[in-house]
Structure formats: C-alpha cells, structure tokens
C-alpha cells in the first residue's frame, strides 16, 4: 500500500539514482568506500594456529526413545495422546506439560500451567536447592545418553523472571515468576556462543522444575583447520562490515573493545551441520557526522566453504 504522492517520488528518486550510478561508474569510483581505521583497545586473545571444526550429528532418536526421555527425565507420560513428529521434532504432551525433542538434541520441557508468567512465587526457592536440582536433571539426561560427550557443560549463574502488578489506587505488587539456573557450554575451553548455546532449568514453588531448555549438541571434531589470528579477524571485520547494516561510508573509525574466540552455535532448529570457531567482536563506531554507535559482529575464525 503506497502513500499518495509516493509513486512519483519513487520514480523521481529512481531516475536520479540511475543517473548517479552511471556517473559514478563512468568516473571509475568504486563502492564501498574503504579507509575505516580499526583501533583495537581490547586485549587480543592468544589463539592456536589450528582449531577443530565440529560437525553436528543428529541423535539416534525415534518415537520410542523420545517417549523414554519424556517419561524418565521429565516424568511426562506420552501415552495419553500420540506423540506428534513435526519439523524434525517429537512433541509429547501430557495435560499442561510438554516435551519437545529435536533430532539435533535440542530439548524443551515446559509445564505450561506454571511457565509464561502463570506462577507467582510466594517465596523464592533456595538457590542452592535449585542449583543442585538442575545438576541432577543434567545427570538424568546423561544417564539417558543425552549429554554431549564432546562438550563441557558448567554452571554459569542464577537469575529470575519478574512480574509486577499496578492498581488504580497506586498500589504496586512485585512477584517472582521463576528462578532459573543457567549453564554454559564449551568445547576444549572455548565457549559456545549464539542462539543455540543455552542450557537453562526453570524452577517454581519449592524448587519444582517447571521448564528446561537444552541445546545438547551431539558434536564430533572432524578436522583441524588453520585459524585466523585476531589481527586477521580485525582485517576481515573491515571487509565484511560492522553488522546492523552500517555502511562503511558512514564510519570513520571503529574502536574494538573486546574480541572473544567462541564456537558459534546456531539456532537449534537449524539445518546447519557444523559449529565453527568464530570471533565475537564488540566495540564502538565513530561516524563521520561525529556520532557514535555500538557494534557487535561475528567473524568466522576459519576459512568458509
């Protein structure tokens, strides 16, 4: 749906753009403009000359095994309704509770009557009890052959989701929805980072487990590949840009604040078959108009195929 007057505007702008493009090509000027200065204020990490690329393999998962996982780990008995298999995911439902088991090893468990802001905790559960219960859950997964052998999973932190009510008379009431325990994934000391790097256990009243998100990748190192040095990664950063669609022409200087070597874990429902080393780079851009913009970019640390 175009606004009135925009058709003629668009036609006019298109004509001007074509004219400019012709003039630019004729004059031999090339886009994008280079010459962005990259200043590293961060301590650059020591990086081995070679790193392993990880291949993800689907778990040996069928309906029977998915039902076993649901029953033994989460006590969800799927016999009440037939499990569904949608988008490579087994979905097992019992009442308000459900388990999703993706063939890549991503497991989600939720008690939908208690997650999603439906629980107001009268008293927060004891944090030590939550951490211990979360670790026990991981042990159960391990006993069911579902803990990735190649990856290390370690306790990261505890957080909580909050719910607040406001009433016309000015009263404000605050509650906790849950307490959750986060774990970090790593491979040989290098952290996994990205949407597929979450392992989290949610707790309700009296440290009852009400939810779980686990990206339990089944990985195998397939080959050792030459690694870009951090300095080479910064050069690459200039080549691929600073993310967020910021054109080089806008930027005069990039100040790099941190460079972290990670393994990038994609969304667990992805069809990607590899987890590869990458540099997670954060910093600040100084624009030609004097403004500053934070940036965050991921640069592959190994050659792409």
């Amino acid at each position, binding site marked *: 749906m175009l606004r009135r007057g925009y058709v003629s505007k668009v036609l006019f702008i298109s004509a001007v753009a074509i004219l400019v493009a012709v003039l630019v090509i004729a004059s031999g000027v090339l886009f994008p403009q280079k010459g962005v200065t990259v200043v590293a204020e961060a301590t650059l990490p020591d990086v081995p000359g070679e790193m392993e690329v990880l291949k993800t393999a689907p778990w040996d998962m069928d309906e029977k095994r998915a039902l076993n996982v649901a029953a033994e780990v989460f006590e969800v008995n799927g016999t009440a309704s037939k499990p569904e298999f949608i988008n490579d995911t087994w979905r097992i439902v019992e009442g308000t509770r459900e388990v999703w088991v993706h063939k890549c090893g991503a497991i989600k468990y939720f008690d939908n009557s208690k997650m999603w*802001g439906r629980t107001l905790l009268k008293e927060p559960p004891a944090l030590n009890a939550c951490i211990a219960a979360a670790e026990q859950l991981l042990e159960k997964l391990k006993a069911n052959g579902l803990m990735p052998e190649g990856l290390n999973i370690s306790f990261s932190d505890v957080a909580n989701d909050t719910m607040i009510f*406001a009433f016309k008379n000015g009263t404000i009431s605050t509650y906790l929805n849950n307490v959750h325990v986060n774990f970090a994934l790593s491979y040989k000391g290098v952290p996994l980072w990205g949407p597929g790097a979450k392992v989290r256990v949610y707790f309700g009243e009296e440290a009852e487990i009400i939810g779980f998100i686990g990206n339990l990748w089944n990985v195998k190192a397939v080959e050792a590949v030459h690694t870009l040095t951090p300095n080479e990664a910064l050069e690459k950063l200039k080549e691929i840009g600073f993310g967020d669609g910021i054109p080089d022409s806008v930027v005069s200087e990039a100040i790099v604040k941190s460079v972290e070597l990670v393994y990038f874990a994609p969304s667990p429902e992805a069809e990607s078959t590899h987890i590869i080393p990458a540099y997670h780079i954060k910093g600040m851009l100084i*624009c030609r108009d004097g403004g500053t913009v934070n940036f965050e970019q991921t640069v592959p640390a190994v050659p792409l195929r």
Partner: protein
Amino acid sequence: MAKVMALMVCFVLLCCFSLNFVNITIAGNDDADQKEVGVEWVENYSSDPLKWTSEAAEGFYSRLGEIGWTKRFDFGDDLAWESDFEKSAVGGSDYLYIDTVDFAWFGGHGDSAEFMFSTNHDGDGAYPCVVHYTEASWGDLDLEWVVISACQVLQWQAPLGNVFDRWAWPVFKGLHAIFGFDSNASDQPIWTDPFHLTWESPGKRFVDYMAVPYTIGESWQRTTIDWQPSDNWGAALAVCDTATNFYQWDDYLPGYGYVSPDVDSPTSFVWRNWQC
C-alpha cells in the same frame, strides 16, 4: 435526456464514493473482525541504521496473511510515519492506521519513553520523529495487540517513571497488550547459519507459535528466547482483570482460542520480564 444521463452518472459516482468512504470508516471501527494486521519498520536511520527490522516485521505480516488475516499496511523506512501511531489530539492519525487493525508490529530504535522513525511527521511538533508515550492512545477503535520490537520501550524503571506510568495508564484505551523488550534488543534474525546468511524471521516464528496454538504472550516469550542472546530481556505489558484473574497477554490469536473482551478503562495492569 443527456441531462438525465449526466445526473445518473453523477449519482452513481457519488454512491461509489460514499460506499468507499463508509467502507474505510467501518474498517477503522471494526472491532468484530479480529483479523487485520499492519506493520511498520525503520532501517534507514541517519546515524544508526538497522538491518533486520524489515525481515522481522514482514515475516510476521506475511505469515499472518497465510493463515487468513487481512494484510492492511506494510510501511517501511520513509513510508513509516510516527503520526500513524499518534492520537488525533496531538495531530496524529492513528484512527486511520494503527487503530484500524487488530495486531500491529513496529520494528526500529527505541528507548523507555518513545520509539523512533527516520522522517519527521509529527502533527504538533512536540516530539518530532518519535512516538512519545504521551502521544499514544490505543484500542479506542480496533487495536488489540502491538509488538514494539525496539530497545527498552518496556523497561521497568526509567527517568520518566515506571512502565505503568509511561505505557499503561496513558496508552491503553481498549488495547489488550504490548509486547517488547525490557533491555536492549539485538537487531538480528534467528540465525540458522550466520556465515552462510541462512536465517528465519522472528516475526514468522512468533506467528508459528501462536498457531500451535500457544497464547500470544507465551508465543512472544518463546520467540524472544529462540531469537535473542541471553544478555537481553523480553517484556510484556497487559490489562489485568482482577475479577477473573485474567491477564490479556493470555489471549489466543482469534480462531485459535479465547480472546478476552476490550477493557476501555482498565483499573489494573500487569508487566513481566524474562531472560531471553
């Protein structure tokens, strides 16, 4: 005879014009037909452009269209106007745009008091290039749910007051819920492989969750957890009916479950946040 013919032509044209006008007016007040969607997104900010807001908004728009919703408008960059979200009292025209659909999405920059546009279309000149919370009054016509996919708009505490003082009491006039972020939000798609640029629209995934069906609030939380890094925090703000203990973020998409009635003058609200 020629005069009669001319009069008849004029009469027919007048009827067509009137019907067209009536049709627009009815659509604006169409609270019964709960299946209209509109999206606006901005990427071409002069000092801090974004890259992925169009994919998020248009994934939402297209997917709702696929499941039978009427796609009313999709305005991006210079075509996205702040006045489309602003009430007529401040020179806005929400009664022609945002408040004529049931579900709306804005994607762009924001902070705790406002969300931002790349061009100036402010009716009274008070807050150019932004929709400030004092300029919004939603749901008095049609709007039920809106996603503001921008940094910090639903931040709990801010210099201008808590989230209820900013986005609840002045804004909700029949609106059921606002979905957004308590913290910053990362401008990215749901990466399935960033190095080969394969990705999924979070807007599409949001609709997929609502079609499972999960409630709208639950679907937004699930989407943000799949989409955003765990440094970021999602948020939702809704009318709370204390008599029935119903939070209006627990509406389902129309046709998939219960949709609560509009509350024109809410007496209580509920807000929550979660780690992505």
